[in-house]
């Protein structure tokens, strides 16, 4: 039945009247079914709201679990990193002790020798007062003899005075000579003093270096204790550090990817000379795949090299190997890298030759006279050098890659937790909206049948005074 026929069903000539009849019928039906309709609306909306609440609660719990997991991952990684830093600091202290303080016994021996020499010189330079002549007492006794105007006694005394004067002058000369010798000895001591000062300054410097290291270790240990205690401060600190690491390592990786692309461009064209330009792997040229493979191998070799050297810790099995085996891996990976760098350098030169040939052909096809450009060797050499250096440069990708992998665990966990929290809030909000819409629908329902409701109310009002009576 078409809708126009439906509305003009009762009085076909007057669709308006017919529609009004339909409305009256609907209103009456709705009035009759009011209570079950209200119940149905409210039951449906309440059920949906309850289901959404349960869902929101589940999402909330999942988010809390994820937060806990993130926290554990963060703390574990932070703990590991701090342990690594402290270990490194201890290694540095050990190195200082081995390098500088291992020579301490010989240093002490030197010091003792210097001190002994200085002591000997000092003892030798000591001032010994000249002993008074033995005959001085005899002279005193003679000098006490009364002269009583005797010229003989006066002469004797004069002679004694002269002898005494001569003796004293001799003594003063000897004393001056001895002093001169002492000054000479003291002058000789000066280099020993200087040497002693130098040794002591060097010892002071070494001790200061150790003190600085111990301060750093103290700070790191405090940091470590915070992490072990899982304090909120440690969590904030590690989260912030992870975010910074994520963005910085991401940026470095992006730059490294550009470097890889440049490397790829150097290798792809000459590889087509080897594997053919017409063959494909899927929808990618086989030469491109080969070039990517070479670059991937270089990156992997770089990863192993960095891992073996101990810069990164992506593969625990390598870091647990003994030093001898790790040295073998270092040598092998380095030799391979060197071979690849040499190959890439020659490929870069080949690429330059091919590009020149293609350029010459293009000039012939376009009717331009072919000219050999000046300084053609400069880009050729440049490409060869780049081809040699880039594989080694790509080795360092391992460092930002490790940071990126570790920090991305935390950052992705955080992003996922935020997403779950927002999802939970949205579901809760949706549940409340549906609940509210149920009440709104009940009101709209009543609005549609307001006329019979009003009549019902009037009847009840009319009845109620009787009831009160």
């Amino acid at each position, binding site marked *: 039945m078409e809708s126009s026929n439906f509305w003009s069903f009762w009085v076909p000539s007057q669709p308006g009247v017919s529609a009004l009849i339909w409305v009256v019928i609907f209103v009456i039906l709705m009035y009759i079914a009011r209570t079950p309709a209200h119940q149905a609306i409210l039951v449906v909306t309440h059920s949906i709201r309850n289901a959404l609440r349960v869902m929101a609660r589940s999402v909330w719990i999942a988010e809390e679990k994820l937060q806990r997991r993130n926290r554990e991952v963060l703390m574990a990684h932070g703990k590991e990193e701090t342990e690594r830093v402290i270990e490194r600091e201890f290694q540095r202290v050990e190195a200082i002790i081995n390098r500088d303080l291992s020579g301490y016994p010989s240093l002490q021996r030197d010091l003792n020798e210097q001190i002994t020499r200085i002591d000997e010189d000092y003892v030798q330079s000591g001032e010994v007062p000249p002993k008074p002549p033995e005959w001085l007492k005899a002279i005193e006794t003679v000098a006490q003899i009364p002269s009583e105007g005797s010229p003989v006694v006066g002469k004797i005394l004069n002679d004694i005075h002269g002898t005494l004067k001569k003796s004293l002058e001799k003594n003063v000369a000897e004393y001056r000579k001895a002093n001169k010798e002492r000054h000479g000895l003291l002058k000789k001591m000066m280099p020993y003093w200087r040497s002693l000062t130098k040794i002591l300054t060097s010892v002071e410097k070494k001790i200061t270096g150790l003190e600085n290291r111990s301060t750093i270790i103290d700070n790191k240990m405090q940091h470590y204790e915070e992490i072990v205690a899982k304090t909120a401060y440690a969590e904030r600190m590690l989260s912030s550090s992870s975010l910074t690491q994520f963005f910085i390592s991401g940026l470095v990786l992006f730059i490294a990817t550009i470097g890889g692309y440049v490397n790829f461009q150097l290798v792809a*064209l000459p590889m*087509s*000379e080897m594997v*053919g*330009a*017409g*063959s*494909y*792997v*899927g*929808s*990618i040229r086989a030469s491109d795949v080969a070039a990517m493979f070479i670059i991937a191998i270089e990156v992997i070799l770089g990863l192993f090299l960095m891992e073996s050297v101990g810069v990164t810790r*992506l593969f625990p099995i390598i870091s647990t190997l003994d030093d001898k085996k790790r040295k073998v891996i270092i040598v092998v990976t380095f030799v391979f890298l060197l071979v690849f760098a040499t190959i890439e350098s020659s490929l870069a030169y080949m690429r330059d030759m*091919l590009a020149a*040939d*293609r350029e010459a*052909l*293009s000039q*012939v*096809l*376009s*009717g331009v006279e072919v000219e050999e450009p000046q300084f053609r060797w400069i880009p050729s050499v440049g490409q060869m050098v780049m081809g040699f250096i880039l594989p080694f440069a790509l080795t360092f990708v391992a460092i930002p890659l490790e940071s990126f*992998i570790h920090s*991305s*665990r935390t950052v992705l966990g955080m992003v996922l937790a935020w997403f779950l929290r927002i999802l939970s809030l949205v579901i809760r909000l949706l549940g409340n909206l549906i609940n509210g819409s149920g009440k709104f629908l009940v009101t709209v329902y009543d609005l549609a049948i307001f006329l019979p409701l009003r009549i019902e109310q009037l009847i009840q009002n009319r009845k109620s005074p009787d009831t009160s009576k």
Partner: protein
Amino acid sequence: MKTLLFATTLFVTLLISGCSEPKNHNRAVYMLLDTSGTYTQQIEKAQGILKYLLGILNPGDSLALARIDSASFSEKDIVAKITFDIRPSKANSQKRAFLESMEKFAKNLKGSSYTDITGGMLQAIEYLNETGAGEKYILIFSDLKEEIKKGHIRDFPIAFDGTKVVALNVTKLRSDNVDPREYQQRVDAWTDRVESGGGTWKVINDLDRLDSLLD
């Protein structure tokens, strides 16, 4: 480590899925050159198109140049044909040799009395199918006015089977100026013939817009 493992697995999966459907990426181009009457004067333009093709075709692709004369369904009408080596350096040498053959042909070009376009098309399809290329092109450098020798039968459907036919430099004849519908009828007739045979048809009269020559 798990992320690294996941990325590697994804890469390998993508690589394997990419390998599952091998597709021939090589292209084969067969250029038919009308040598009838006054159309021989257009040879320089044809040379320009061939040079453009030599510039854009890759190692592994095939190229053939053939003339349309009185009876074109013949290997004798193929002026030069080559499948470029997969090594770019060798392919460049082959392109130089092809260019020389083309210039030699252009110098010694003689006009023909009739224009057997259908025969040329049949020869082109045969050559293109033999190359086994993934994309097949017939470039027809002609005014599309077919004149068949008495007794030759050419009025039958041709199976193009995915071959892309490009009509280049379809010049207007004097009679077209009198009644332009003739020109349109010629083009429409070939369009119907190619499309009903399972091919695609395109006309490029502006030779400065050759970038859309091979899709």
